[in-house]
């Protein structure tokens, strides 16, 4: 119960006193905030990298988001099996809380050794993360296909990504595409995944006329931004513009004709009724549940849903990458590393780096990533691709990822461009777009404006 608040009588004199007191407090603390608590974090200049785990008993603390706990517990066990002196302790918070609390956790006193990072925000500028380049050299990561590290490189200014120091690696990559319900797809006459955007739109129309829900998607928490980005990359002919924008490179501009066209198409799909009327209240825990129970023909989402869908019905669901504009065009998809970073204040940096190396290279660990996390490990070119049951959604996503790696179609999510662009701009604006409450050109302009103000402040 909220406390009863009341303020009877005696107004003026007491507000005056209140103002006096607060003004006094203000005067007393005239220096800028944060000066007294300036971070004493060590400079992130690379120090000598050791690949040794040592022999002394060590507890490695890993902080992840709650859905990731099964995966990292398994990885921790596998690591302990190899290095008996290292015990891996996995703690978790729900994803939203983790995102809000990360900067303060990393600058506080009880700092974990490895932490799951959703976006870099100001973490590098505030010198809260360890630069992993020395370890990349020591472990030989610099000999692997480097595109897998692009999204976790941060430039000297702390904002630009794509090049610069390496601040994160992950057990695997999330990958986006479109799941389809095989039974319903057969009903509308789909024999193989669509090869072009036009084919896909035809299928959507067929689904609609068959009385089915063409696209099931989580409109409440950002699922609709995926097809938007896919459409944008299709119309632009290459992911370059988006990638530049995602990486906060100077001069990046998303307010282009391709974006406007993408927005217009998405809005058109909404008008045609391809989305469910309640799309804005479906979130990413409900959407897969609904899809698994047979609603919706197509479900744009990512490979992290694959294990759950396979559990609901192995062999019932397929996966394909978002089709390109032209026949034989390049397939693109959004991918993001399940980024793990080592805080600058971590106690066991070398052991943490060893763990990071382990999860990218060890076959057991790679298997776990696929089967438990639904994510695809990258790593060296000669590393084994983990097997998955044939016909499962997981195996489809693994195959798709190989396809992407070969065609170099890995692109980062627009939602990761700045720390808050998804929640503050992309999400509400896409909701407005689908509801017909904003025009495609206003939509594109607003995203660019917010992006610039996010970076400028």
């Amino acid at each position, binding site marked *: 119960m909220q406390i*009863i608040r009341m303020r009877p009588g005696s*107004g003026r004199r007491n507000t005056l006193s209140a103002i006096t007191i607060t003004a006094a407090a203000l005067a007393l603390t005239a220096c800028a905030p944060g000066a007294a608590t300036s971070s004493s974090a060590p400079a992130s200049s690379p120090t000598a990298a050791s690949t040794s785990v040592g022999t002394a008993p060590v507890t490695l603390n890993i902080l992840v988001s709650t859905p990731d706990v099964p995966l990292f517990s398994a990885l921790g066990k596998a690591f302990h099996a190899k290095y008996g002196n290292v015990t891996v302790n996995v703690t978790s918070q729900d994803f939203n809380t983790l*995102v809000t*609390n990360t900067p303060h956790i990393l600058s506080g006193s009880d700092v974990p050794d490895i932490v799951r990072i959703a976006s870099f925000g100001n973490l590098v500028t505030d010198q*809260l993360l360890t630069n992993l380049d020395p370890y990349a050299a020591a472990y030989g990561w610099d000999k692997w296909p480097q595109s897998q590290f692009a999204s976790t490189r941060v430039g000297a200014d702390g904002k630009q990504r794509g090049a610069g120091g390496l601040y994160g690696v992950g057990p695997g990559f999330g990958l986006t595409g479109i799941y389809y319900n095989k039974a319903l797809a057969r009903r509308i006459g789909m024999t193989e995944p669509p090869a072009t955007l036009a084919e896909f739109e035809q299928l959507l129309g067929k689904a609609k006329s068959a009385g089915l829900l063409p696209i099931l998607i989580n409109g409440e928490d950002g699922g609709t931004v995926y097809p938007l980005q896919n459409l944008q990359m299709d119309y632009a002919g290459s992911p370059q513009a988006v990638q530049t924008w995602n990486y906060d490179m100077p001069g990046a501009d998303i307010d282009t004709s391709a974006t406007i066209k993408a927005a217009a198409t998405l809005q058109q799909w909404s008008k045609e009724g391809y989305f469910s009327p*309640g799309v804005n209240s479906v979130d990413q825990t409900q959407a897969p549940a609904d899809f698994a129970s047979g609603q919706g023909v197509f479900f744009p989402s990512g490979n992290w849903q694959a294990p759950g869908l396979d559990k609901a019905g192995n062999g019932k669901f397929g996966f394909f990458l978002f089709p390109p504009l032209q026949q034989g065009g390049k397939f693109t998809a959004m991918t993001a590393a399940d980024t793990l970073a080592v805080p600058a204040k971590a106690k066991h940096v070398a052991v943490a780096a060893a763990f990071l190396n382990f999860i990218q290279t060890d076959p057991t660990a790679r298997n776990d990533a696929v089967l438990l996390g639904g994510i695809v490990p990258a790593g060296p070119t000669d590393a084994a691709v983990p097997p998955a049951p044939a016909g499962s959604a997981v195996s489809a996503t693994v195959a798709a990822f190989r396809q992407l790696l070969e065609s170099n179609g890995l692109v980062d999510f627009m939602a990761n461009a700045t720390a808050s662009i998804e929640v503050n701009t992309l999400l509400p604006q896409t909701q407005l777009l689908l509801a017909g409450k904003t025009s495609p050109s206003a939509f594109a302009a607003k995203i660019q404006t917010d992006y610039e103000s996010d970076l400028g402040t």
Partner: protein
Amino acid sequence: MSYSRTAPRSDTATGTPPAPSDPALRGVAPVGPVPGRGSSAGRLRARRVRSRQWGALLWVAPAFLCYAAFVLYPLGQSIQYSFYNWDGIGIATPAGLANWQAIFTQPELLSAITHAFELIVFYTLFPVGAGLAAASLIRELKPGPLSTISRTILFIPQVLPLVAAGVAWTWLYSPNGLVNQILRATGLGGATRAWLGDFTFALPAVGVIGVWVMLGFCTVLLLSGIGKIDPALYEAAGLDGAGRLWQFRAVTLPGLRQELVVCTTFTVVAALASFDVIQVSTQGGPGYQTMVPGVEIYRLTFLDQRIGQASALAIFLTVLVLLVVWPIQRLGRTD
């Protein structure tokens, strides 16, 4: 019938206080006027009064110090932060009045404040109105199990954490939830929708949660107030030929003035400062439809890490609350 307990007051006219009724105090001799014994007794008493006064400060000090340390001091800091650009960890750069200007120029911030005021309709007007009705309904029942039960049940939503109210109603509003179920059952199936994802109805839907939470509180409060109104006033009005509505306006409402002021203040503050319910149910969506200052401050602080802007908005909210509450309080002053 009156619920208020009036303490017996000493009758200054006769100069003697009534005998204490508490058995624990029976041993204390009643006080009569002190016979004048000259100036020495007067000086002694004066000195005791003065030392008592400074000693009295000790009674108040702990409470006030806690309050000053954890409320007034942070409030001052908030004011200070609002003039800087700061991400909470690195170095702060002076921002002058930029954060304050943004409140009036950024449409999202302005609309958040508008929504908070719209919520007042749901948090205050409906509960106070329905509370008046419910209070008079309960009042007319004979005191007995039904009146106690109804009072208790109506108050239950107040007892729960607001987060729980948000969780409960999010589920009720889901496409298969109770709200749509009732609509279908009463033949209004065409009105069903995903309430919290609907651009027109998301804010009213959140408002209904506010009605649910506040109704019991207003009812109980107004019930006590009605109980204090002297029935003789009603008799007099009735004898004067006043109809029910006139009686309501002339007798009930004025008699309820204090309670209405408390009700209104409490609910208005809850509406303007709302955070829990919206954070749990809609997070400000769809679009920007249910964004309120409370959630915006939280987001600015922890997601955007723009402490200066968050503080400016927070202080603005505080001032706004005070500005809205002050006239309400003045209306309630019986002078």
